[in-house]
C-alpha cells in the first residue's frame, strides 16, 4: 500500500496508479485534457501538471506513478497560472473568443442551445457547447486572456464521410482520437499530419475516412473533447435530456448500448464499455433507423383495393377474422432471430396454441444476416414479421399479414399491416454472443401506435377470443428462470464483433437490406462517396461576356469564416433598394423563403450584395452555390427603409451579418449630413470583414473583438458606452446584428436616454405582411417586422418574446428532424435530409 499526501490530505494509492487517477479517486480534482479514462496515459497537454516536493519542474500527474511518501500539490497559484498559460496557447488555434467573453453567462442564458452553422467560430455555434471539456476547463481556470491574437486556419470542413463530420479548425491536438483508434483497432487510420503550427489530425495519406477503411465505430467522436469530430445525425441536439442502457439487437452479438434520449426519441447510441467499440450499425444506425420518416406507425387494413389506416381494434378484428379459417398446418408465422426472447416465446405460443400450427419459423440468417424462409408445403396463410418471403411466393398465398417496422415490397400483398415496436422501444431479454442473458429496456417511445411484437400477438389472440395465452406470463417467467428451457430455444449464430472486422457486419434486419434504408451504410457498402460540391471558386467562373441572367450569382467569396458575400443580378431590387431594407431569397424551388439584409447594391449594374451566414438547410444551399449559378427567387426590396434625417452624430453598431448592412446605412446617413461613427464587433480579428469599406463611408470606425485580438476588447456597446462616458455627443444609435448583441445594446443604453433603433430579424415567410410570422411586440403592440420594420425603437422591444419565438422554431426544426426524416436520406450528404443544411 502506497501512502502519500495530496494537498495536505494523506491518501492511499494502488500499485502502478498515476497521481491523476489517485487524486480523482479521492475526489481531488486535477484539471486535465488529453487524458481520457479509457486511454493509456499520454502526457501531451500538460494541463494536469502538479508540484511534487523534491521533484524538479512540474511533472504531469497523468503519467507520474504515485510513490510512497510523495508530497503533492495540485492547486498552487503558480500551477493555476501555468495551466492558464497552457490553455491560452492551445486556444490560439481554436475559436476561443466565447471563453473570454465577459457576457458569457448572459449569453448562455439568452441562448442555451448552440445554433446550427456550417463553420463554427465560437461556442455559441458549436455542436459541442453543452458538453465541452474545454469550456468547463476554461471556467475552472478563470481563463480570460490570450497572449497574442489567435489564428484561424481556414481548413476546409470535412463533410464527405458518412456519419462523421470533421472541422479540424477546432482541433486542439490532444491526440485522443489518434490514440483511441490505435488502442481499439491496433492501428490508427487517423494520425497527426505535418509538424508544429500546421500539424493537424488527419488520415495519414490525405484520404477521407471512408477511403482509409474507417470502421465508423465512432470512438474518436466519443472521446474528442471539442466539437471537431461530430456525429452528423446527433450533432445539433446538444446534451441529451437523458440516457439509458439497453442491448443492441441489430444482430446476435448483443452489444450493450448507451442511448441518448430527447423527448422519448433516441438521438445517438454509444458503447457502454469504451473498450468494446460498437460496429457502425450500433453506433450510427440505431437513431436514424428508429426515427425513420417512413416507419410504420398506424395499423392498416385492406378495404377493397387499398390499405386504409384504422384503429387497432379494427385491424385486430379484421386480422382475427381472416386468420380463423387458417388454423392448423396451413398457417405459418415467420420471424427474425434478432428478437427479444419473450417475443419469440409468445410468437411460438400464438402459432402453436392459437393457430394450432407447428410452423413458427425463425428465419435463419446467413453470415450477413440475410434470412429467407422457404414455406413448408401447404402453407396458405402467413403472419410475417419482416420481409422473409419472396414477393413471388407471397403471390401464391391466400392470406398475408405483415407485422413490421418499415413498408416493403410485401405490403402490396398484405391484407393487414401491424406496426411493430423496435428493440429500443420494448423491454425484454436477449442472450448475447457469450451466452449471457442481457436485458432490453423500453428506453424510447415507439412511433405513433406501434406496439411490441408480443403485445400484437397477444392482442390478436384476444381479438380471436382465445384465452390460451392468458397464463403465458407466468410460464414465461418460469422458463426464463430455468436457462436453457426448450421453450426459449433460439437459433444462435454467434457473430464475431463487427467493430473489429467490418466484413462481419450484418447487413440485413427483419429481412430488410439496411444499406437500402440508410444512405451512410450504402456508401460503406459500395464506396460511393458523399463528395460535396467543390468549394466555391475564389475567382469569377461566370463568362463575363455573357449577359447576366435573372438572380444569377455574379461574384461570391467567403468574407469571413461562415460568412459568404454573394453578389446577385437582381435589377428590379437594385433599382429601388434603400438603406435598411432586405430581400427574401429562395435558393431553389424547394427552399424556404429566407430574409437577408441588403448590404450594398448597384442600380446601374443591376446587382445587389448580401452576406449569407451558413446556418440551416436553405442558407447552406446558398453557401454552396457558385458564381454563375442562379437563385430561384429573390424578392425585394422589402421593409421600411431606415429613417434618414440629419440627426447630428449617429453611431452604427454592427456584428455578424449586420456588419455589411451598415455600409448602406452609413452612406445614406452621411449624405443627409450626419457625423457617422461605426462600431463593429466580432468574436475575433479574423471574423471582421469589410473594414476598409466601412472606414471609407464613416467619419470614424471603431472595431471591437470579444477576445481583444483587434481594437477594443468587448462588444460594440462597450465601445459606445466608453465613448459616451468620455463626454462625446451621440444623438442616435442604430444596431444591426444577432438578437443577443442588439438586446445587450438596448438594455445597457436604456437609462442613458440615447435613442436606439434595432433591425429585427424574426422568422419570416412572405415578407409582405401576409402571414404574420414576423410578429414582434413593440411598446405593447403587435407589429409585423417585414412591413412595419425591420427598425424599431430598441428600448421598447420585447426581447424575451423575440428570443423565444426564434428559439422555438429552432426546436421545431430539430424535432421534425427526428420524426420526419426519411431514413434512406438520414446520412446522405446530398439528400438534404440530415438537417445539416447540405443540399
Amino acid at each position, binding site marked *: 500500500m502506497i501512502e502519500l499526501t495530496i494537498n495536505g490530505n494523506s491518501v492511499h494509492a494502488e500499485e502502478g496508479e498515476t497521481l491523476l487517477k489517485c487524486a480523482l479517486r479521492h475526489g481531488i480534482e486535477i484539471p486535465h485534457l488529453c487524458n481520457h479514462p479509457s486511454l493509456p496515459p499520454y502526457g501531451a497537454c500538460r494541463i494536469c501538471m502538479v508540484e511534487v516536493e523534491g521533484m524538479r519542474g512540474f511533472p504531469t500527474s497523468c503519467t507520474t506513478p504515485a510513490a510512497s511518501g510523495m508530497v503533492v500539490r495540485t492547486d498552487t497559484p503558480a500551477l493555476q497560472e501555468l495551466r492558464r498559460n497552457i490553455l491560452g496557447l492551445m486556444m490560439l488555434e481554436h475559436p476561443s473568443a466565447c471563453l473570454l467573453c465577459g457576457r458569457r453567462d448572459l449569453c448562455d442564458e439568452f441562448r442555451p442551445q448552440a445554433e446550427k452553422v456550417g463553420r463554427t467560430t465560437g461556442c455559441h455555434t458549436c455542436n459541442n457547447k453543452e458538453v465541452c471539456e474545454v469550456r468547463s476547463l476554461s471556467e475552472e481556470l478563470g481563463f480570460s486572456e490570450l497572449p497574442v491574437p489567435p489564428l484561424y486556419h481556414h481548413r476546409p470542413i470535412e463533410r464527405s464521410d458518412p456519419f462523421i463530420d470533421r472541422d479540424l479548425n477546432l482541433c486542439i491536438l490532444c491526440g485522443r482520437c489518434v490514440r483511441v483508434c490505435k488502442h481499439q483497432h491496433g492501428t490508427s487510420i487517423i494520425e497527426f499530419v505535418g509538424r508544429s503550427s500546421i500539424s493537424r489530425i488527419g488520415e495519414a495519406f490525405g484520404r477521407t475516412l471512408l477511403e482509409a477503411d474507417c470502421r465508423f465505430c465512432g470512438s474518436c467522436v466519443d472521446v474528442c473533447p471539442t466539437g471537431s469530430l461530430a456525429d452528423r445525425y446527433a450533432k445539433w441536439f446538444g446534451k441529451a435530456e437523458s440516457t439509458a442502457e439497453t442491448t443492441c439487437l441489430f444482430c446476435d452479438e448483443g452489444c450493450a448500448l448507451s442511448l441518448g434520449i430527447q423527448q422519448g426519441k433516441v438521438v445517438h447510441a454509444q458503447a457502454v464499455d469504451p473498450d468494446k467499440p460498437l460496429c457502425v450499425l450500433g453506433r450510427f444506425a440505431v437513431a436514424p433507423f428508429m426515427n425513420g420518416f417512413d416507419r410504420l406507425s398506424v395499423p392498416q387494413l385492406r378495404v377493397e383495393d387499398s390499405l386504409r389506416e384504422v384503429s387497432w381494434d379494427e385491424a385486430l378484428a379484421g386480422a382475427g377474422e381472416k386468420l380463423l379459417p387458417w388454423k392448423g398446418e396451413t398457417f405459418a408465422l415467420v420471424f427474425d432471430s434478432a428478437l427479444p426472447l419473450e417475443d419469440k416465446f409468445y410468437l411460438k405460443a400464438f402459432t402453436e396454441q392459437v393457430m394450432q400450427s407447428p410452423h413458427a419459423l425463425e428465419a435463419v440468417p446467413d453470415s450477413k444476416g440475410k434470412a429467407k424462409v422457404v414455406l413448408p408445403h401447404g402453407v396458405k396463410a402467413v403472419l410475417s414479421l419482416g420481409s422473409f418471403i419472396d414477393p413471388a411466393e407471397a403471390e401464391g398465398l391466400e392470406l398475408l399479414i405483415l407485422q413490421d417496422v418499415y413498408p416493403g415490397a410485401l405490403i402490396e400483398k398484405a391484407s393487414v399491416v401491424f406496426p411493430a415496436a423496435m428493440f429500443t422501444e420494448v423491454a425484454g431479454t436477449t442472450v448475447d454472443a457469450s451466452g449471457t442473458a442481457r436485458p432490453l429496456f423500453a428506453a424510447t417511445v415507439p412511433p405513433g401506435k406501434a406496439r411490441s411484437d408480443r403485445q400484437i400477438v397477444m392482442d390478436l389472440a384476444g381479438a380471436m377470443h382465445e384465452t390460451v395465452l392468458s397464463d403465458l406470463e407466468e410460464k414465461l417467467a418460469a422458463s426464463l428462470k430455468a436457462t436453457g428451457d426448450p421453450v426459449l430455444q433460439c437459433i444462435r449464430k454467434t457473430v464475431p464483433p463487427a467493430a473489429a472486422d467490418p466484413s462481419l457486419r450484418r447487413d440485413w434486419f427483419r429481412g430488410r437490406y439496411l444499406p437500402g434504408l440508410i444512405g451512410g451504410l450504402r456508401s460503406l457498402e459500395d464506396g460511393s462517396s458523399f463528395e460535396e460540391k467543390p468549394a466555391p471558386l475564389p475567382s469569377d467562373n461566370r463568362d463575363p461576356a455573357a449577359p447576366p441572367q435573372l438572380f444569377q450569382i455574379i461574384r461570391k467569396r467567403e468574407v469571413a469564416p461562415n460568412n459568404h458575400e454573394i453578389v446577385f443580378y437582381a435589377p428590379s431590387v437594385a433599382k429601388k433598394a434603400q438603406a435598411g431594407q432586405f430581400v427574401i431569397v429562395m435558393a431553389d424551388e424547394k427552399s424556404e423563403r429566407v430574409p437577408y439584409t441588403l448590404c450594398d447594391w448597384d442600380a446601374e449594374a443591376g446587382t445587389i450584395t448580401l452576406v449569407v451566414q451558413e446556418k440551416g438547410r436553405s442558407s447552406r444551399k446558398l453557401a454552396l452555390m457558385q458564381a454563375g449559378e442562379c437563385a430561384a427567387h429573390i424578392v425585394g426590396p422589402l421593409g421600411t427603409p431606415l429613417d434618414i434625417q440629419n440627426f447630428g452624430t449617429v453611431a452604427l453598431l454592427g456584428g455578424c451579418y449586420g456588419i455589411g448592412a451598415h455600409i448602406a446605412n452609413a452612406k445614406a446617413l452621411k449624405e443627409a449630413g450626419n457625423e457617422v461613427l461605426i462600431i463593429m464587433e466580432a468574436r475575433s480579428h479574423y471574423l471582421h470583414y469589410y473594414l476598409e469599406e466601412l472606414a471609407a463611408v464613416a467619419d470614424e470606425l471603431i472595431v471591437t473583438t470579444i477576445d481583444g485580438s483587434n481594437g477594443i476588447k468587448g462588444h460594440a456597446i462597450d465601445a459606445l458606452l466608453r465613448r459616451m462616458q468620455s463626454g462625446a455627443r451621440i444623438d442616435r444609435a442604430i444596431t444591426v446584428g444577432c438578437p443577443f448583441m442588439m438586446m445587450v445594446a438596448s438594455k445597457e443604453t436604456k437609462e442613458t436616454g440615447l435613442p436606439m433603433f434595432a433591425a429585427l430579424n424574426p422568422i419570416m*415567410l412572405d415578407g409582405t405582411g401576409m402571414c404574420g410570422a414576423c410578429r414582434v411586440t413593440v411598446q405593447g403592440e*403587435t407589429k409585423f417586422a417585414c412591413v412595419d420594420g425591420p427598425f424599431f425603437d430598441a428600448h421598447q422591444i420585447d426581447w424575451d418574446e423575440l428570443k423565444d419565438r426564434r428559439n422555438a422554431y429552432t426546436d421545431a426544426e430539430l424535432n421534425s428532424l427526428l420524426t420526419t426524416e426519411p431514413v434512406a436520406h438520414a446520412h446522405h450528404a446530398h439528400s438534404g435530409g440530415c438537417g445539416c443544411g447540405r443540399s
Partner: protein
Amino acid sequence: MSEMEKQENAAAPKPKKVRPPRQPMPEQAPEDRARNFREVPYGYTPEMAMVEASRCLDCKKPKCVEGCPVHVDIPGFIRLIQQGKFVESAQHLKEQNALPAICGRVCPQEEQCESLCIIGIKNEPVAVGRLERFVADYERNAGAVAIPELPPATGKRIAVIGAGPAGLTAAGDLVRMGHAVTVFEALQEPGGVLIYGIPEFRLPKEIVKAEVDYLRKLGVEFVMDFVVGRNASIQELLTEEGYHAVFIGSGAGLPAFLGIPGENLVGVYSANEYLTRSNLMKSYLFPKYDTPPIRRQRVAVVGGGNVAMDAARTALRLGGDVHIVYRRAKEQMPARIEEIHHAEEEGVHMKLLTNPKRIIGDDQHRVTGIECIQMELGEPDASGRRRPVPVEGSEFVIEADTVVIAIGNNPNPLIPRSMPDLAVSRWGTILVDEETMASSVPGVFAAGDIVSGAATVISAMGQARTAAATINRYVRGEDIVFPSTKNN
C-alpha cells in the same frame, strides 16, 4: 331521397319522366382522406354527369343564372352535356367563367346558382357545380383546351397586380381582347389564395397551374417576385413603364388577429401562415421541401369560415387532434356547408358557442391552451341574427399546443399606402364605381378582395370581368368616369 320526399313524389301526379335523384359525388372515404393530401372528391364519371345533366329542366327563365355572380349560361352548358358534347360544353362555359375547374370546386353553389334552382324547391337542386367541374376537367384531361384565335394586337399594355383569381381573370379577358398583359405577383408562384391558401385536397395545385399555363400560352406575361409598391409604384407603371392602364387585384392578405392576450406566443399562427407553409411552401412534403411542417398534437382553430375549415383539415392531415373554436352556432358558420360536413366527417371536433378570452403559455412563451368562455344565443339583433352572449362564469380551458387564428383577412395596405390619392374605405378596401370597377385614379381599376374585403373566388372573377371590359373601353379611348370623391 328522404322518406318524406318519396311520399311526396308518390302523392304527386306521376310526371312523364321519372327524374333521377341528384347524383352523389364519389369521394375518398373520410378514414382515408383525413390522412392524405389528395383531393377529396373524385369527380363525376361521364355517365354520372349525363344522368345529372338530364335532371335539368332547361327553364325558359333560368333562376340559377340569376344566382351566379358571373351569369354563366347554366342551362346552355348543361344541355351540351346532355348531348354528350363535353368539350363544347366547357368552351361554352368558359365564355362567362374563365376558371370553371376552380369555381366548380370552390364556389358556394348552395348559396348561389343551386339555391335558386326550381327543382330545388321540392327536390335536391341540379348539381351545377359538380357538372361545371366535370366538363372543365374533361376538357383539360382530354388535352382539348384549344388556344383561341386572338384579335389583332391593339398595342395597349395593361399591368395586372396580383395573380389571384381576380388578376388571372382580368388578364385572360384582356389578352383575348388583343391587349398586351403583364401580371406582377409578389410571391414565387401565381394563383393568389388558390395557391397559398386553399389546400391541395380541396383544389389540386395542378389545376391552378394548368390555368396559368393556359394564360401564358395566350401571351400573358407573368413577372413573379415583384411587389408593386416596392419594386415600382402604380404611378411608375403608368408613366415610366408605359402601361396604359393598371388593374389591382391584390386581395385581402392581411391576417386579422383576435387582439386577446397571448396571441404572440410561440405556436400561435395566422391561418395565412399556417396554410402558406403547407400549401405554397409544401411543408407537408418535408424533407423533399425545406420548410418544416408544423406537426403538433392538439390544434385549436379559431373561426368558422372556409379558412378555418381548411386550416383544421390541414392540421388533421398533419396528424393532430383538432378542435374548431367558434363563437356562434353551427348554422351561423360562414363556411360552405360541404366544408363543414367534410371537416366533421374527417374527425374535426367543433367547440361551438365558444369564445376565446386569452391564450395561455408556459415560461418559454409556448402555447399550452386557450381560455374560452361559453356563449349562448341571445335576442335577435336588427339583422335578425341571434347574437351570442357570454355565459357568466363559464370560463374553461381547451388544451392546445398550436392555435390557428382564422377569423378573417383584411385588405393588404401595401398598395394604398404607396399611393395616397387612391381613395380607400375605412376598412382599407379600394373604393370603385361598382358599374365599371374604376378607382379614384384615372387609368387604375380594381377588383376582388381588395375591393370587397375577403369574399369569394367567383365574386372576384365577376368584378374582374367588369373591370376588364371597362379597361378595354378605356384604353380604346372611351370616356370612363373615375369617381374622384369618396362615396359611401
